[in-house]
């Protein structure tokens, strides 16, 4: 069935993503020990930052003084956000147009299924995969933290996972939409990464529109509230992109 096809076409990307992200997250747990040994030797004073850059460095050092803060800074704000976007885009590329370059699109299109069904199954599979790569790697934290004598709450891991998922899903949808416009693998990827860079820039200039703040779960980390507005916005944008993808695919000549 179509699910099987969607799986076969994306399984290596998915499995690599899951493995890499999980190992990376697990590795972060041990990084904490190294950081704890290193930080005091830097002798940086975190009081009275006079420039934004100093402020940033001060904030970073403060955060990393405890395990939870370190994980937020290293794992959620940097690693999983950056790699999460990368893998979400990677998963979103491909699809029917890419098949057309390889030739089997005509076979697929001759099956008794509509293009919407094809896209629908592929998207559902992809979003489920995004969910997995968002939720599972953080669970390495509560699992491994005790090994270095620390604790990480499962609820925290899941909450952050959810934050990762919504933005990952948005980038997945962007890549999927771009894949209905360009047949090759490269252009959708590059354009999606460009969009990510622009979003990062926008976040620096106008922190309220911080897409990656939603992704890193900053609000949750700082005051325990999930970024509901962020969830709604990303969900709406993702839906719009997927709808556009369906419409574009419908009109395409093969």
């Amino acid at each position, binding site marked *: 069935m179509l699910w099987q096809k969607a799986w076969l076409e994306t399984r290596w990307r998915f499995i690599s993503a899951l493995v890499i992200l999980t190992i990376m997250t697990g590795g972060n747990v041990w990084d904490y020990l190294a950081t704890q040994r290193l930080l005091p030797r830097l002798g940086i004073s975190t009081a009275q930052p006079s420039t934004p850059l100093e402020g940033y460095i001060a904030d970073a050092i403060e955060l990393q003084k405890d395990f939870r803060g370190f994980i937020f800074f290293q794992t959620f704000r940097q690693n999983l956000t950056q790699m999460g976007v990368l893998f979400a885009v990677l998963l979103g590329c491909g699809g029917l147009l890419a098949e057309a370059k390889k*030739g089997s699109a005509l076979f697929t299109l001759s099956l008794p299924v509509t293009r919407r069904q094809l896209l629908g199954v592929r998207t559902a599979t992809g979003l489920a995969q995004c969910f997995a790569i968002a939720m599972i790697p953080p669970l390495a934290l509560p699992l491994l933290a005790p090994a270095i004598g620390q604790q990480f709450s499962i609820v925290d891991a899941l909450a952050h996972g959810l934050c990762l998922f919504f933005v990952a899903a948005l980038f997945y949808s962007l890549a999927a939409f771009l894949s209905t416009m360009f047949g090759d693998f490269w252009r959708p990827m590059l354009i999606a990464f460009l969009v990510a860079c622009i979003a990062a820039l926008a976040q620096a200039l106008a922190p309220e529109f911080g897409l990656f703040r939603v992704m890193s779960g900053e609000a949750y980390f700082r005051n325990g509230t999930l970024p509901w507005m962020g969830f709604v916005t990303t969900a709406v944008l993702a839906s719009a992109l997927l709808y556009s993808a369906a419409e574009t695919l419908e009109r395409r*000549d093969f």
Partner: protein
Amino acid sequence: MSDRLAIATADLWKRYDDVDALSGLNLQVPAGSICGFLGRNGAGKTTTIKVLLGMARPTKGSAHVLGVAADDATAAAAARRRIGFVSDEKDLYDYMTVGEIIAFTRPFFPNWSTELERKYLSKFELTPHREIKELSRGTRTKLALLLVLCRGAELLILDEPTAGLDPAMAEDVLQALVGHMAGEQMTIFFSSHQISEIDQIADHVAIIDRGRLVVAGALDDIRDRYQRVQLVFAGHAPQADLRAPGIIRVQRLGRVLTILTNDREAALAEARALSPASIDVAPVTLKEIFLESVRTEE
């Protein structure tokens, strides 16, 4: 053969950028027939097939397959449960094995016959564990055919099914196709460059040139209609301007006047009026009909 049309296009146009791939195509394929689709490269054969299967949208006009409009996405998808298609490149999922793609395709078709599957697996010498990317073109063609022949399709649309095959394999393919026909409901529409194949198994033919049909109909009728009339005169063949309807080409060489026509009686009537010493009528091969039909407009 029934009166129903398995395929019907009405004034079908398809434009790509500023080229008209199809310019007013009126194709009618009766249900229960085997229809050969002939045309030069670039005449519009593959475009026609793509429009019929909903892979490309008509610019103007309509296309109906098994009574369903080709551009009605939902209805056409349902109709495809009764249709089998093989593309000219015969590309399949090269990351799957023979067995995997059969297992993938089977559930889409409630009328799938596992008996036919076994028959063709052995007849076409296909081994389930082989990866599709390793298969030769001929083997891939046979696999593609197995996938359409087992599904109980009422209509097969095949784009050059024997291209690149050696004569023995090609004959196997033709044999599988005629073996598939089991009654009034089954139609085969196939394009081919091998005119001999069309002579062999088709009962209808459609010749497309520059995006429209130039010859179409039952093969027996066409063979009856197209004749070569050769007149030999005692002296030089006259320069008379022959105006009978259906005359396609007139050649004069010394005492011989040769007329190629698709209306024998009209041509003969005019020929007799010229009082030749002898009149010979000979049938015209499909190949000659094809060559004449696609050259005339130049």
